[in-house]
């Protein structure tokens, strides 16, 4: 584990600053840059924050076996998103389904 607790304390504070800066960026992004891609930008920032938290606060840096487990778990979640995403985006009954955009749009304009 940590041989020097002084340095690990310092690391905690450094990561905190990083996370606070990223949080601030989260707040200014929607009105400052990439404004048409807010969802993507926000997710990108969230992933960076998550990486910092997992690697340093949760001490994953340096853990080999658990690191493999974490990646496998995330891979499986990615598979779920991918396949459901493929299903949903190639749905061919858009026009007659009562819950898709088109039908809902039609209903809400009564």
């Amino acid at each position, binding site marked *: 584990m940590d041989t020097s607790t002084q340095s690990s304390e310092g690391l905690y504070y450094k990561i905190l600053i990083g*996370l606070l800066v990223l949080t601030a960026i989260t707040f200014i992004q929607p009105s400052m840059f990439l404004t048409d891609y807010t969802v993507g930008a926000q997710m990108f920032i969230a992933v960076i924050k998550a990486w910092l938290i997992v690697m340093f606060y949760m001490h994953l840096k340096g853990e080999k076996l*658990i690191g493999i487990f974490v990646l496998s778990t995330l891979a499986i979640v990615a598979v779920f998103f991918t396949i459901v995403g493929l299903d949903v985006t190639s749905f061919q009954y858009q026009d007659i389904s009562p819950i898709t955009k088109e039908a809902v749009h039609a209903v809400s304009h009564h």
Partner: protein
Amino acid sequence: MSAHFEEEYVVAPDGTEHKVQAWQNDTDAGKLGFWLFMFTEVMMFGAMFLSLTYYFTLHTQDFFAASHGLNRVLGGTNTVILLISALTMGLGLVKMKKGDIKTAKLMIWATIFLALLFLGIKAVEWTAEYHHGIFLGLPNLQAGTEHYIGHGQTLFFGMYFTMTGLHGFHILIGVGIMLWLLKRINSGKVTPEHNILHFNITLYWDLVHLIWVFVFPLFYMIGAGDVTGGAVHGH
């Protein structure tokens, strides 16, 4: 349960000695087991994020509009509170390993305080939403009523209350196990040498924070700015 046991060694045919790993006092087992438990939480919230993403693709503009109406000041404050609480919990563990039990306990109390503050602010938010007619079970979220806010916004708020609610429930559980941790420290069961419980509870708190790192932008920030192209106040 017998608290002490004898360490066992076996000699291999080539003469080398090997220690037998017993289930007692196995710190690495505790760590591995807790990470596996955290994977189950990732899968649970993952399935909810999946559902949220699906409905977002079906009702993108409505989601932006609903998100715009959330209180970013309170939500942002909570984000910073949770962030700092992750720091306090982590520092507590560092102090415990160093032998500074007094400061370690102080850090845990600080984390508990921040957690309760988070919940308090959440309660304020939900109360405000309730008074605006936006809450589970209220007529505005029932199809067919006069002021029905529409499928898109209903699904947004359905997922909003569910996910922030379950997240808040996990914060409450976190407070509970932190209080239990303090009790274990006081009774000498958790020490600078044997602190896997403290380590795991810190990991738990990091996970709770991690979930909020994704929940916050997906609900509060996607509707910030003028993303709805002017159609902020509904069709």
